[in-house]
């Protein structure tokens, strides 16, 4: 018994290991980004995210190694060189200034003998530590939610945070410094999220609704040219979206649809339809014909069959398709940029605005990424069962 288990374990071991490794490969960078999104700009600048979880800073250790012997554990063992004195530490603007003292003689003794000197990095760590000890600078914060706050209100200056700016300058023309008011302002990211919903929800429902009817018609209604029509629709998929941007933009200019939600809905519907029809038709087409025959025999018309039989059975396909369509539209920047632009900025558009032309504001991008990821994650987990559910199982006996 035990041996069997052991053998089973070793049989599965390579597979399990591969799965774990693959998961780690995907999750580790995401985890790193997640940690980074909670770190202040200065911390991201100076150290990697993996150091954020370590509680101590390196300066204390370096001090113990190189300085504590003479200066003591409490920093003030030498009365002439009290390292807790901010005036003394303040004279060292950079670690280079501190390093310059190593060679100097104090009371006839070389400050630090040549073979015992810290390297430049250690010197910098020691100075950093002493600046904190002497009260010249506050211990650096390792974690902050400022990035998320900045993203939600759309605060996009190169340095500083929304809270700091509000504390220093107060309300300006572009902000009221009331978090909820600012977060729902027309140019804030939260509003962008609402706009994204306004774009994505109808753009998902409309094409799938039409595609459902079309798929039923193409698979179970007998009319001439059915196959040709289906082939044509499938063939439409090969038209790249970028090719039609200018013609459709021109058309929309004439129709006054630029900058309206309707225009974007129609565009996404047009481009979502071929694939949606293709996918649902393949699914509906494979339903057993006995189901339909018995339904027709019982006197059901096409609409009843569609509503009572096809729709419930095709739910997994429709659900999966809806998730894909929704995620694709949620993540789309190009279409929203061209047809909506700044008249109703969507989330992706807002996020692309967070960083200026020289890369300023980069430290907020990780937080922005997680803000934009939340909705797809919720959608995915909420509708995940559609991927795995096999409604067909047991629907036909015999």
């Amino acid at each position, binding site marked *: 018994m035990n041996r069997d288990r052991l053998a089973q374990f070793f049989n599965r071991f390579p597979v399990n290991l591969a799965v774990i490794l693959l998961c780690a490969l995907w999750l580790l960078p995401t985890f790193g980004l997640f940690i980074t999104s909670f770190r202040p700009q200065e911390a991201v600048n100076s150290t990697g995210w993996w150091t954020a979880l370590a509680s101590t800073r390196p300066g204390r250790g370096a001090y113990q190694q190189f300085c504590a012997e003479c200066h003591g554990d409490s920093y003030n063992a030498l009365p002439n060189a009290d390292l807790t004195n901010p005036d003394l530490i303040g004279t060292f603007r950079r670690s*280079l*200034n501190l390093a310059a003292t190593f060679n100097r003689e104090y009371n006839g003794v070389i400050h630090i003998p040549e073979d015992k000197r810290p390297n430049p990095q250690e010197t910098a760590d020691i100075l950093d530590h002493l600046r904190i000890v002497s009260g010249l600078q506050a211990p650096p914060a390792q974690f902050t939610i400022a990035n998320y706050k900045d993203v939600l209100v759309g605060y996009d200056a190169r340095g500083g945070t929304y809270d700091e700016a509000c504390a220093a300058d107060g309300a300006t023309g572009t902000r009221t410094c009331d978090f909820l008011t600012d977060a729902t302002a027309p140019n804030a990211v939260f509003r962008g999220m609402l706009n994204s919903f306004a774009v994505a929800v109808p753009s998902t429902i409309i094409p799938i609704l039409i595609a459902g009817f079309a798929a039923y018609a193409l698979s179970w209604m007998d009319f001439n040219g059915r196959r040709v029509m289906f082939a044509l629709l499938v063939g439409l998929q090969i038209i790249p979206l970028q090719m039609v941007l200018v013609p459709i933009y021109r058309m929309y200019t004439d129709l006054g649809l630029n900058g309206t939600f309707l225009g974007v809905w129609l565009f996404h519907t047009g481009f979502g339809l071929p694939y949606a029809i293709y996918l649902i038709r393949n699914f509906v087409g494979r339903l057993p014909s006995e189901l339909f025959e018995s339904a027709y025999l019982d006197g059901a018309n096409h609409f009843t069959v569609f509503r009572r039989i096809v729709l419930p059975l095709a739910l997994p396909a429709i659900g999966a398709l809806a998730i894909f369509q929704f995620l694709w539209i949620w993540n789309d920047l190009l279409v929203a940029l061209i047809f909506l632009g*700044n008249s109703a900025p969507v989330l992706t558009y807002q996020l692309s605005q967070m960083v200026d032309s020289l890369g*300023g504001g980069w430290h907020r991008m990780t937080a922005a990424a997680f803000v934009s990821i939340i909705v797809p994650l919720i959608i995915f987990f909420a509708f995940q069962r559609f991927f795995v559910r096999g409604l067909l199982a047991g629907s036909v006996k015999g």
Partner: protein
Amino acid sequence: MLKRLSLLVVVLLLIAGSAYAQDASNIDCMGSEGSTLSIMASWAGEEEETFRSIIGPLLEACNITLSYEGTRDMNTLLPTRVEGGNPPDVAIFANPGALKSFADNLVPLTDLGVNADSYSESWQTLGTANGNWLGLPLKTDVKSLVWYSPVAFEAAGYEVPTTWDEFVALMDQMVADGGPAPLAMGFESGGATGWTATDFVQDILLRTQGADYTNGLATGETAWNDQGVIDAWTTYVDWVNKYNVGGADNATTTPFADAILMPFQDPPQAWMVKQSGFAGSAVIQPNFPDYVYGEDFAFFVLPGQGEEAPPMQVSGDILGVFNNTPATQALVAYLSSAEGATAWAASGFDLTPSSAVDMSAYENPISADKAATLAEASGVSYDVGDLVSPAVGQAEFDGITAAVGGGDVTEILNNIQSLMEQNMEATPEASG
């Protein structure tokens, strides 16, 4: 009596108030009151805020509603808008090449009431296509700067070099001292990787061959595979290998913004970084809020062969107008006026190319020093990479990246030259 007196006071105050308002503002609205103005630019974030503050007085005085679209994807968006017959009223281009690709759609500035006197002839020529002056020079930045840390220089006993030979000797000294590398030359920048390097090469060229020779690269008068150019490229590649942090391998993979920070970290990873004027207020200061300009960070102009000031390499953002409306007329008039130029200078958003500017308006000490170096320079040379067609510019970026990676400089420059010749042949047809 009292009532009448107070009425008199009120009337007097009203008169004084309106007189004051007229004095405070010389803005000519051109009848644009209450209209809307749409602007597309690549400025987002803090840059957008600054730009809005510059044109704020105009919008307020004329009650114009601004519809501003700041996008990093102007190369996608603007052609679609123009082709689709719905261009923004005004677009701000990062270089003259982009402006000229819309030469057929833009309104000549002379039709819009521009104050031409505010701009030198070379700035006007920059935005001229098919004989029409289309591009209003809006913003310029000096590129031939070397940023360093005076505090660190002092601690190490280094002096700011005043001649080319001193500069090279200083870098050799730094290598010999065994400390941090002399230069942070990382130039990774996504699809535009290479621009920092080509800027540097152009600065070397300006110092070894002079401004006329260098400017000739853009017009075709100087061949790209000429010996002088080959020498400059070779010098740059040598320097990357000798003086860069981590040598040539690191140069192509280190983001340019990270390289800018290297001399200012503690401990420093490099002694100096050659980068445009934006580095100070847009990168160093926001990343090190406690640092004081002039003590913790400062710049010197990359020295020339002799003691005299070398030519300055500059970049520029240019405004083009698609729709001739009262609002765009008012905007062009305002930006080209002394008032607009001074508002630009006061904003600290790089420098204004307008000669109508009041130099004392540069309140920010970094901007003031940059403006002073530009005024002292013995001439200006526009970034060649921005003047040539986008294809040649990209070939130059890719070429320098390949050269740093060990490619053959002569072969790379031969390719750029033949591409340049193809483009020169194609241009007359395209414009005709």
